[in-house]
């Protein structure tokens, strides 16, 4: 189970990551379609995600919050654009206010998931993220998409300081 390809297009502002999974497509799809399984990996260990709504039909909404080490709870949402279980899911992913409503003026990214059977067993999973502008990418990273990274960096700093 390894990342086999990373395709970054700086002009189209798109990043696409391909992973080979040692599991059938249906099992991999379950990690997206079942909110309890989704919660096990969507947020980093220091910011685990809790999904309060999870509707993967077209136009459906998923909303979640992540709980940080200091009790802070950044919120986010998905809006389903297209779905073809268990192979394909396309959705917008953005930030939400404390009451769960999408934050006005906050950047949104378009995510596309593809799960394909591999000959000889297993699944090829491709996840693409597309951004509307460099400014959006910057903002998304700043606003906490990268909690995991920030945490990891501060851990490294702590180790170095010790």
């Amino acid at each position: 189970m390894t990342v086999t390809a990373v395709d970054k297009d700086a002009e189209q502002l798109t990043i696409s990551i391909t992973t080979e999974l040692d599991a059938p497509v249906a099992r991999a799809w379950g990690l997206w379609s079942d909110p309890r399984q989704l919660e096990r990996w969507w947020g980093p260990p220091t910011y685990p995600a809790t999904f309060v709504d999870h509707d993967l039909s077209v136009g459906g909404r998923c909303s979640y919050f992540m709980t940080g080490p200091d009790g802070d709870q950044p919120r986010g949402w998905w809006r389903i654009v297209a779905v073809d279980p268990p192979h394909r899911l396309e959705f917008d992913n953005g930030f939400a206010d404390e009451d769960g409503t999408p934050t006005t003026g906050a950047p949104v990214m378009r995510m596309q998931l593809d799960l394909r059977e591999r000959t000889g067993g297993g699944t090829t999973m491709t996840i693409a993220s597309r951004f509307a502008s460099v400014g959006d990418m910057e903002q998304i990273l700043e606003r906490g998409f990268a909690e995991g990274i920030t945490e990891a960096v501060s851990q490294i700093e702590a180790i170095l300081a010790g």
Partner: protein
Amino acid sequence: MVVDLTQQQGVDEDRADLVFNALSHRTRRDILRRSMDGELSVSSLARSYAMSFAAVQKHVAVLDRAGLVTKSRHGREQLVRTDMATVHAAQGLLDEFEAVWRARIDRFTEALTAPSKGAAP
């Protein structure tokens, strides 16, 4: 470059606003893409779009103010050239997203191999 722009305090914050505003428009991103070789004039760019010369000229001016393109006179034409630092900045940001997704995929594969007990059907 974008990171540098926002990290340098004061004077440069206004510049960062100009840059982000300039990049927020589809046509202007397209102009940047076409102008990497620096061989196109404003008028030849204008022929590529279903909009007036004046409108395209205005987009080029916004990019110019943000320092995303440079213009040079070549005979009667003004040639437009993209400042490649912009593209490099986007590349750096994509690297950060790659790191986020690699961490996420690690957790995904971990969850995949964990027993699916308690999972919804």
